[in-house]
């Protein structure tokens, strides 16, 4: 009886891993195939089942007669996502600290309402926001620019940062702030010298959410850009034509997932750290 649980656990993990990894393997093999390799029924093993070709990969970087270079959109996506995430994280962390530690009151509106106001931005369907964003960026002359996209993405990511960080700060005992103030810190020094150094796990989680949502956004990248600026998700979709180029789509999908996988490896160790409460 005691052995049932470990066996069950391993079985489930193996099955789940296969479920998660299989699409990646599928994309990987497909990306090295030509049109013949894809249409001739399922094949898996290179050199035996099919003849591998790097044509799809070369095509993505302007080589092999391909008409696009994915490096540009990749870099744009990088710049937009990172800038927007950093701005959101800085503003969001400051806002969250305020919402967690100080009481605000304007008539019947209190801290809880303010926090909900931030979070509620994510409840709205993106379509509702598309037209206002389009018009406002138009007035500012920022349509089809990196700067315009950064502004829009900050609006999208800030609620996530605030939400995650308010929750995180609420897990840090208030006594830590009080002690810092008793030791002679101003409220800002308390935040900067005591609370922030202990907030790395929260910042990591908030940062990851910002990067994932920013990196994967297609809708606003699509509606707010035309020709000058192109982000990666839009570039990938535009590869499509009357004959679906599965090989290029697979290769580009892998490229777009790669940065997230790299990040996941680096920050994994922070994710299992619980709260830092001193009450154990």
């Amino acid at each position, binding site marked *: 009886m005691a052995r049932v649980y470990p066996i069950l656990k391993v079985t489930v993990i193996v099955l789940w891993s296969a479920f998660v990894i299989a699409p990646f393997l599928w994309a990987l093999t497909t990306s090295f195939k030509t049109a013949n390799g894809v249409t001739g029924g399922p094949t898996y093993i290179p050199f035996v089942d099919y003849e591998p070709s790097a044509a799809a990969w070369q095509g993505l970087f302007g080589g092999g007669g391909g008409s696009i270079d994915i490096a540009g959109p990749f870099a744009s996506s990088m710049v937009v996502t990172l800038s927007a995430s950093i701005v959101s994280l800085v503003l969001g962390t400051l806002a969250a600290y305020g919402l967690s530690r100080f009481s605000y009151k304007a008539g019947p509106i209190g801290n809880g309402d303010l926090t909900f106001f931030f979070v509620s931005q994510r409840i709205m369907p993106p379509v509702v926001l598309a037209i206002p964003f389009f018009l406002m960026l138009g007035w500012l002359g920022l349509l089809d620019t990196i700067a315009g996209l950064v502004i829009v993405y900050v609006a999208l990511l800030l609620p996530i940062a605030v939400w995650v960080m308010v929750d995180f700060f609420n897990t840090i005992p208030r006594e830590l702030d*009080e002690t810092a103030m008793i030791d002679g810190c101003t409220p800002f020094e308390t935040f900067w010298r005591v609370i922030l150094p202990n907030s790395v796990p929260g910042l990591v989680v908030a940062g990851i959410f910002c990067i994932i949502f920013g990196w994967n956004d297609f809708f606003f990248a699509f509606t707010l850009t035309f020709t000058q600026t192109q982000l990666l998700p839009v570039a990938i979709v535009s590869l499509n034509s009357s004959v679906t180029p599965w090989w290029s789509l697979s290769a580009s999908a892998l490229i777009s997932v790669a940065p997230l996988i790299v990040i996941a490896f680096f920050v994994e160790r922070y994710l299992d750290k619980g709260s830092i409460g001193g009450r154990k």
Partner: protein
Amino acid sequence: MARITLERLGHAYNRRDGTPNYALHPLDLVWEDGGTYALLGPSGCGKSTMLNIVSGLLTPSEGRVLIDGHDMTGTSVAQRNIAQVFQFPVVYPSKTVYENLAFPLRCRNMGNREVDRRVNEIAELLNLDTILQRPARKLTPDAKQLISLGRGLVRDDVAVILMDEPLTVIDPQLKFHLRRKLKDISARHGHTLVYVTHDQNEAMTLAEQVIVMDNGRIAQVGTPQELFENPTHSHVGYFIGSPSMNFLPVSAKNGKLNVAGQTVASGNVDGGDADNLVLGIRPEFVDIVPINTPMSLRANLSEIQDLGTYQIVTARLGNGPLLRVKAKSFNGVVGQEMALHLAPEWMRIFSDGKRVNAQVEQ
């Protein structure tokens, strides 16, 4: 070092209907420079509220806090130069023990060399000198609590050290050790020390003056001996002493004091004859005497608790109240009849919870 004066200080939360709900009723209190004080009372009696108002973490709804005669009621926590140690040890988890102790000095932009000198001095005093480079978050609760204390001691501008039940989470063995260390340090440095606790032994051993609180009010301020011998409030008699004071309904009539229909002493109570009084007497001052001794109380044995060095004998008066006696070695069968003698000089008479003067004799 400083003298702290609380002037008509009170704190109330407003109820729904707008009437104030006092956590701390307006009171006046002075903590002299260099004195050691204990705030003693059950949970929720306003002790911590008072402490947080003094340190500035809480703004009082009325009254003023004076430090050395200066009104500090509206100033920020950092400006008051107060050290406070909380019930749960607080260390800065991201810093080493050394940096924890140095932090208050760093906040004051003190030079590295001076910081180093003071941190080492305090670390030695608290026996933390061997673990200075360890991360503070990995220490035991008592070591953490020493660090909290050290952060207060490392500064020389501290007006007062406030401690809010600092030994609650500490092992009983270490508690004893830490308590002695605290007393030692406060005696040596002459800090003004205010110590909040609900443990009477802690209050009695640490403080020169004990402030007993009840329901947001001060019940009595006095030395441990005064509180033990002359409680001015039945709450103090109940809260101080182990076991606590006995309280028996008593009536004063024609120069006699009667408990449960039996005369226990002759005497007069200020305010004249009354039959709704309460007689308080410590278990230490009740003796078990042979039956038929004059002025003794007839009772039935209800329980003997042997605590090793002494016994607590509980007896019931008729069908009425219970009376506890501290005895040396008493043997008996539950239910057996016995006689108790209450020492008249230790009888304290209360009316509505407050002490009233009475002349009592055998």
